[in-house]
């Protein structure tokens, strides 16, 4: 897939936005520029944290069934130690509801488009087929708000909610779709990696 050049930077998202979405986008762009100029952009907080923190040794991993393919292969989310350390320190990353409420403009290859929350974006991509382009149109809370210090467990939960598809954790299923397991439960022999199934890890967790 190739992206037309007019999707790079500039003012083009305004053509797809109306009403409150357009007003929020204009406000967001102004705020993001000011945050960067004044040094309190979310990324500034992440970069500055490296001067004073050490990565945490992460003890857990999150195997989950791939949405739309529950009987097929499985994915395993490995939280990063730097991010866990930043969450435990507090004052760096936004509250998780600020991430999940981030607004995205998604444009499918067939021209269909919609503005959706981050938490709904994965489902929209899956239902609407290949995506032609996407752009963040409101991320104000990620710059304006920071979460306080978290425990290790709360930090892992924050990462699960952000990085594991919401279809896995937000709905009721007939059987578990994910598990939080010790990293030692993940086999180091990967010769049959594509045959791994979630049930193998549920048994490990029960044991």
């Amino acid at each position, binding site marked *: *897939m190739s*992206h037309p050049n007019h*999707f*790079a*930077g500039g003012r083009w998202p305004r053509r797809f936005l109306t009403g409150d979405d357009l007003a929020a986008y204009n406000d967001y762009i102004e705020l*993001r*520029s000011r945050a*960067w*100029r*004044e*040094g309190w*952009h*979310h*990324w*500034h907080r*992440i*970069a*500055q944290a*490296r*001067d004073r923190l050490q990565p945490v040794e992460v003890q857990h991993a999150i195997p989950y069934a*791939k949405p739309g393919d529950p009987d097929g*292969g499985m*994915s*395993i*989310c*490995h*939280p*990063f*130690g*730097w*991010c866990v350390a*930043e969450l435990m320190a507090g004052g760096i*990353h936004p509250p998780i509801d600020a991430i999940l409420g*981030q607004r*995205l403009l998604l444009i499918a290859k067939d021209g269909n488009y919609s503005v959706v929350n*981050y938490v709904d*974006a994965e489902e929209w*991509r899956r239902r609407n087929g*290949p*995506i032609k*382009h*996407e*752009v*963040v149109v409101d*991320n104000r809370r*990620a710059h304006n708000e920071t979460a306080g210090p978290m425990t290790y467990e709360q930090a892992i939960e924050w*990462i699960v909610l*952000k*990085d594991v598809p919401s279809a896995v954790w937000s709905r009721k299923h007939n059987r578990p779709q994910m598990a939080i397991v010790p*990293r*030692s439960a*993940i*086999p*180091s*022999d*990967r010769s049959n*990696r*594509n045959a791994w199934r979630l049930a193998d890890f549920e048994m490990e967790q029960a044991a």
Partner: protein
Amino acid sequence: MADLLKHIPVTGGNAKAWFSYDQSGAPAIDNSVNISSITDNGAGSSAPAFTNAFSDALYIAISTSRTNTGTRGGDLVGINCGASDDDNRTTSDIDILVVSPADATSNAAEVDRSVIMFAFLGDLA
């Protein structure tokens, strides 16, 4: 540090996220900036997630991998576009794939490597 960072433009310039990752055994992360997790999707296949998302899906990914001189030459490391050649970059994560190329006796194969390195450049959200 804070004063210095103010002079880095939000558009273009330095890498806004990067990581070094070992997927040869139990996956391990060597180092990272602006990456909250990596998802192991199968042999040779993984997906890093950005802590601070990119503004749009047109960021640049620069990659390399450790290769084994005893096998078929250099690996191919890049975006996992699947059979339909779709772009799998999103503002919040990217599917990547490490492939050992085909030779006269073997087909191309997805492989796990002990060093996978990526840097990402683009505009931040």
